């Protein structure tokens, strides 16, 4: 198929940036979206132009590196996939596809479609861990039984890949699904209880300091999340935060 691509080009963080049109031809419907981008880039390199910069790594939907806003949706029109798992059969011959970087004040553009998501790392530094040393002297793994339900729910929250689609898609650029998932994972496990109060207060404070917006419960993040992280995790974080605020 032949396509027109409208792609955001921005040389660096200080550049103003603009949308630029490109044509690609003979795209196979079996290609992944990123392979289509590879075709475009090979074409650009061979004609002496600069290729479009975009983040990508594992290309199997788990590293969370790829991040494109395609035709107005994070990771494109398919559900439960990252951009690298999106296939060209979702598009038709002659389509015009608009491709933009994640847009959020807390995710500044580095170049073209590449954004800086280090705000997520800093939120994790504020409390995304359990303080246990790797001495090899911790108690036996089976010393504390954990109900299957709690373990499964913690696992569901922990499947977050940190891609930032929740922020990108939220009309408020809120990071609450991301933070809620991490807070929930530890809140559901006995190991996480000891530091629960400080964790949620510190992580939320850091989230606010990074300039993410506030959650207005539109639920868009849950729909666009490639891993299907539930809004339940935001509600749990809200509870954790309120009870921590009362204690603290």
């Amino acid at each position, binding site marked *: 198929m032949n396509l027109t691509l409208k792609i955001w080009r921005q040389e660096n963080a200080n550049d103003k940036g603009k949308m630029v049109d490109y044509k690609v031809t003979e795209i*196979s*419907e079996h290609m992944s979206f990123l392979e289509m981008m590879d075709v475009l880039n090979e074409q650009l390199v061979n004609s002496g132009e*600069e290729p479009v910069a975009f983040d990508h790594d*594992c290309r199997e939907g788990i*590293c969370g590196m790829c991040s494109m806003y395609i035709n107005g949706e994070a990771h494109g029109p398919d559900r439960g996939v990252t951009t690298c798992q999106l296939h060209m059969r979702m598009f038709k011959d002659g389509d015009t596809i608009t491709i933009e970087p994640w847009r959020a004040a807390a995710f500044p553009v*580095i170049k073209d479609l590449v954004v800086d998501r280090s705000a997520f790392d800093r939120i994790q*530094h504020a409390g995304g861990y359990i303080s246990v040393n*790797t001495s090899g002297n911790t108690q036996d793994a089976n010393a504390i039984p954990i109900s*299957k339900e709690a373990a499964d729910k913690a696992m569901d929250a922990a*499947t977050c890949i940190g891609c930032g689609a929740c922020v990108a898609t939220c009309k408020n650029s809120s990071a609450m699904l991301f933070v809620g998932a991490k807070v929930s994972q530890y809140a559901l496990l006995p190991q996480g209880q000891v530091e629960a109060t400080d964790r949620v207060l510190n992580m939320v404070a850091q989230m606010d300091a990074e300039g993410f917006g506030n959650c207005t419960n539109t639920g868009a993040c849950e729909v666009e999340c490639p891993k299907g992280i539930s809004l339940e995790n935001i509600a749990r974080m809200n509870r954790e935060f309120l009870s921590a605020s009362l204690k603290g």
Partner: protein
Amino acid sequence: MALDSKIPKGPLKDKWTDYKNHIDLVNPANKRNIDVIVVGTGLAGGSASATLAELGYNVKAFAYQDSPRRAHSIAAQGGINAAKNYQGDGDSTYRLFYDTVKGGDYRSREANVYRLAEVSANIIDQCVAQGVPFARDYGGLLDNRSFGGVLVSRTFYAKGQTGQQLLLGAYSAMNRQIARGKIEMFNRHEMLDVVIVDGKARGIIARDLVTGEIERHSAHAVVVASGGYGNVYFLSTNAMGSNATAAWKIHKKGAYFANPCYTQIHPTCIPRSGDYQSKLTLMSESLRNDGRIWVPKSMEDVMAIREGRKKPTDLSEDERDYYLERRYPAFGNLVPRDVASRAAKERCDAGYGVNATGEAVYLDFKSAIQRYGKEQAKIKHISKPTEKQIYDLGKDIVKAKYGNLFQMYEKIVDQNPYETPMMIYPAVHYTMGGVWVDYNLMTTIPGCYAIGEANFSDHGANRLGASALMQGLADGYFVLPYTIGDYLADDIRTGKIATDSPEFEAAEKEVSERIEFFINNKGTHSVDYYHKKLGKIMWDKCGMSRNETGLKEAIIEISELRADFWKNVNVPGTATEYNEQLAKAGRVADFLELGELFAKDALIREESAGGHFREEFQTEDGEAKRIKEFQFVSAWEYKGEPKDAILHKEELAYENIEVKERSYK
């Protein structure tokens, strides 16, 4: 230089304990004055960074990704082995050790593997304490899976995302230390050289991938945890950015490179669909429990299927060649990974591949659906079930077992595997070879360590399933933190390492010149053009099976390709910006050297062992034939061109295990 593996004396089971009791320690106050650089933040690098920082060292960690959490360990699916014996099925440290050595086709180092088995149980304790949500049973205790043909259930798992959960555990431990300021994190940075001062590794030259700035970083020791080199094949299950540059740079500065020809090629991956393919996706090996593998018997049917005139479901049973069942009646579709991979390649080379590229075979669940369907009909007392009833009942069972894999397949290939057979083909998955290290995990450069997939030590010629995660975390959490202390104990009075020495100057100059070259070359071909060509040579001639002629050709072709690359490569853009093509050019330049050494190593290894299959060395039944005189580690010393590399042999002694033939029949 003679190789000294520094294996402690004494009985196997006491070696590690005795070793720990007698090494030098660094007191906590002195640790504050010692810096350690860790390159790579996967399971090995992440766990090492966190632990070293907890101990009190100042750690500088480097990742080419935008966050430590994205290292490719995250993609591991199945699980992690540990000799916990929670199931009471007779598992023990010795049994895990034995399975690992045997699985590695008797080409790994006994003492290292035993230590790995010993610390494996600690890993699970540690990860649970960190909040890793391993699967549990209804009683709230940890659940286990059985894996990869061993006789016990010792694999711990977190759905199909065990690697992700373990990596996020290590990442969380890192975060705690980053918050304390004990780890300084350099994301989007790439190590481009190691700096050696007075014979010791004392720092690295790194490039900031965003600004292009070349930076000097000094430390008292350098740990390379940069993963494997599977991307030398261009197509593999590795991440796009996975590269051998850090490992290769230390090799060029004096670290020996061991067993480069040992590569694991996984039989069940989704095949390539065209030349644009950038990456291959693994499908769990468990599918072979119920799927039957076949290609058409006649060439006409093959052509008809390729041209879309026939569908695989149109072929009757006697028009199908269930070649694994034909060739291996005893094991059938459940032959080991390497055998299954080679058999698929054999059929496709003979022209029977079933997709447009000619590189795919069928994995068919029709029989399984029928079998389960009839079984269910009996259980449900349906006396005369219709075809549809049988199909529906059978499909439900298959869905319960493999539903998520079928869905993933459908997303990628857009075919419903319940209705039509899956197409699969082998793909490069893991490299057992790597930087040579002694028992301390130190390379042949003093003060330079290699851990995780980047080293060679634990998996011999073939890695068992669920062992990679175990090794990465064992090295990082429990082995390196001890062994590196023994070395650093001599450095308590050294003080900060200056970065303005002539050695740093020279290393930086070398790196800068190479970058200048790429930017100014303005050649005719893109970096990917060369990478794809290299990948094709590697796959065709150093792939699942190898022979002398092919390997000799590969050596010549790769060296010619390398010469062409240095003349005609085209890198757009500038050196002072985010420039992925530039970063890639450096990585491919290193692969172009590594590939040749790989072929050379495969050429001298005149035997078949594990993932290395030499066509000249097989039994009458076409099985791998190991040869006693090759019971050594080949460690290569860099001498300029790969063809000049010098071979050093580390003989492998098996004192606690009897070396036997691996029989598949």
